[in-house]
């Protein structure tokens, strides 16, 4: 048990602002660790104190474990909040915090290691009784053909050493298998220094649905599900809670599976268990666990009324959960649109620059999480997220209608943004009906779906 009084935030942008808000409400002082590009940012102005980490490139600042821990010690902080991205899921930071006598606001190093490696995480999922995508490692065409016959076509050939969507090749049927395997092995050896390949069932179309969990090292509860199927280059652009059109049994099974997985790890902290929902066969598969606060957490907060960062800090202080599963009540429907500095009309080309003006609608049912304001630079070294627009309605139809209205009233000048794309998406028939699959946005961008 350690009551936290001063937290160093090892992050930037909207999530730094978000964490500062909760800390201020809890009476906890904040020290923001900044790179040279962020010394004048909105979170730097809001934090109680600012400490310099290093030069702008992430490797020299936000990704430098030693710099982050030294900054926390020098600033007299008693804990580090890593936010998302950067070092948030690095066991090395959690371990370095322990060594320096700091509280790491996140899971234990062992838990981070368990979910950080895909093969290890899959092993834990299977041991906890979760369904995983049928598949396995293969050493050549013959073995691949045998396995494909068992798991069914189409299959996906993956490089074991790949990641982030790289080294993935779908194979529609037996005729194309031999060639694909040969090319994939050669490419895997060249690109990843590891010729091993992995074959699994190609789940397509699929939806990305995830369950928010919260644990204290003994007990785990869930805070409902989210749908994050609107993606571009494996990056989520719209999220909503609850996941629409899922079916009561599937929803209940996924929530139970997420708890079973987290319980197996005796998980401590806030986390998300991600699943792939098979639109054609029904059913779901474990994908991975994100052991941190997520970008899309506000949609869960909107329908649960919880402050997830406050709960995260509570368990990091060594407390038992103060909520039981029965205390979690989910009402209404929430949608989040990410507004990125990207030009939708030019293949989502990044658009760094300077914000000339930023104005957002002000309504009780709208939440805007942002770090941009007039005059703020949008540096090229970091991701392109400018703001998250979160809208709540009594039901999904109302939330979609309110989001259309809210988007029309957002104005960001100075850089290109994804606002026009979000308007288009909210007006599309497919999103309006709900339950789109992960390829929907690409088809919308290519003009392959009808518009409402």
């Amino acid at each position: 048990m350690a009551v936290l009084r001063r937290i160093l935030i090892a992050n930037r942008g909207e999530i730094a602002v978000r964490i500062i808000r909760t800390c201020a409400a809890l009476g906890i002082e904040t020290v923001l660790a900044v790179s040279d590009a962020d010394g004048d940012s909105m979170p730097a102005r809001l934090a109680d104190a600012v400490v310099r980490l290093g030069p702008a490139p992430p490797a020299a600042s936000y990704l430098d474990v030693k710099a982050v821990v030294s900054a926390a010690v020098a600033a007299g902080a008693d804990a580090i909040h890593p936010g998302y991205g950067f070092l948030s899921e690095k066991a090395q930071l959690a371990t370095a915090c322990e060594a320096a006598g700091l509280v790491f606001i996140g899971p234990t190093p062992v838990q981070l290691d368990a979910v950080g490696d895909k093969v290890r995480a899959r092993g834990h999922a299977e041991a906890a009784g979760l369904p995983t995508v049928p598949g396995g490692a293969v050493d050549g065409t013959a073995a691949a053909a045998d396995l494909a016959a068992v798991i069914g076509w189409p299959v996906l050939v993956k490089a074991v050493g790949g990641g982030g969507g790289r080294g993935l090749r779908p194979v529609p049927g037996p005729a194309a298998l031999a060639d694909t395997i040969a090319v994939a092995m050669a490419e895997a050896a060249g690109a990843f220094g590891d010729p091993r390949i992995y074959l699994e069932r190609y789940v397509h179309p699929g939806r990305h649905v995830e369950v928010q969990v919260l644990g204290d090292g003994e007990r785990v509860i869930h805070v409902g599900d989210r749908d994050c199927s609107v993606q571009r280059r494996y990056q989520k652009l719209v999220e909503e809670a609850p996941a629409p059109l899922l079916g009561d049994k599937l929803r209940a099974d996924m929530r139970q599976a997420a708890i079973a997985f987290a319980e197996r790890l005796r998980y401590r902290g806030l986390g998300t268990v991600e699943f792939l929902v098979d639109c054609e066969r029904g059913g779901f598969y474990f994908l991975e666990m994100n052991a941190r606060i997520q970008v899309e957490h506000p949609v869960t907060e909107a329908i649960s009324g919880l402050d997830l960062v406050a709960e995260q800090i509570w368990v990091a202080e060594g407390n038992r959960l103060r909520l039981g599963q029965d205390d979690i009540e989910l009402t209404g429907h929430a949608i989040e649109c990410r507004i990125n500095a990207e030009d939708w009309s030019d293949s989502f080309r990044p658009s760094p620059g300077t914000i000339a003006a930023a104005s957002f609608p002000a309504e009780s049912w709208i939440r805007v999480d942002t770090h941009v304001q007039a005059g703020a630079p949008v540096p090229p070294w970091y991701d392109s997220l400018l703001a998250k627009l979160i809208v709540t309605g009594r039901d999904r139809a109302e939330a979609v209608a309110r989001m259309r209205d809210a988007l029309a009233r957002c104005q960001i000048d100075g850089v290109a943004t994804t606002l026009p794309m979000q308007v288009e998406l909210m007006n599309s028939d497919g999103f309006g009906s709900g339950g789109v699959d992960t390829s929907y946005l690409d088809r919308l961008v290519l003009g392959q779906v009808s518009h409402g």
Partner: protein
Amino acid sequence: MDLTNADVQDILHLLDGLPFSELSLETARFRLSLRRGADGGWAQALEVLGQPNVLPTASDQRAATEPLAEASSAGEDSSAENSAAEAGSGADLTDVRTPLLGTFYRAPRPGAPPFVTVGAVVAPDTVVGIIETMKLMNSVTAGVSGAIAEIVLADGEFAEQGTVLMRIRSQR
């Protein structure tokens, strides 16, 4: 701490009963503009004005000569870099420039061989480097046929848009 969303909502409740359609509020810590739209809905623009409270750290001897607040003005070093690079362009040399600002990488991954070295023969669609901007990797192609004559920028260096990365001697 600044104004909270609840504060803004409270202000809007007060304004809703009044005949005003615009409010500007400025303190030492923030500037808030509220504007009522044609449909009656409010829009807000918030600027946080409070100055960062920068703590001195042990490694700050260096920081003293690199002021924190000034590092973010993106455009300041672009002209110098570009003009320096432009001076060397010869008649039969074609410049390969950055399509957008970002970090230049000569190889697909750390430790991998570079895409091209001096003397390499390239076609217009040959990938000669990568520019990383906002975590996205953008391929840079040669644009012309020829041989790499000079590589101007070093691996891992940051470049403004339009900076010369390398020069290609055109094929005759």
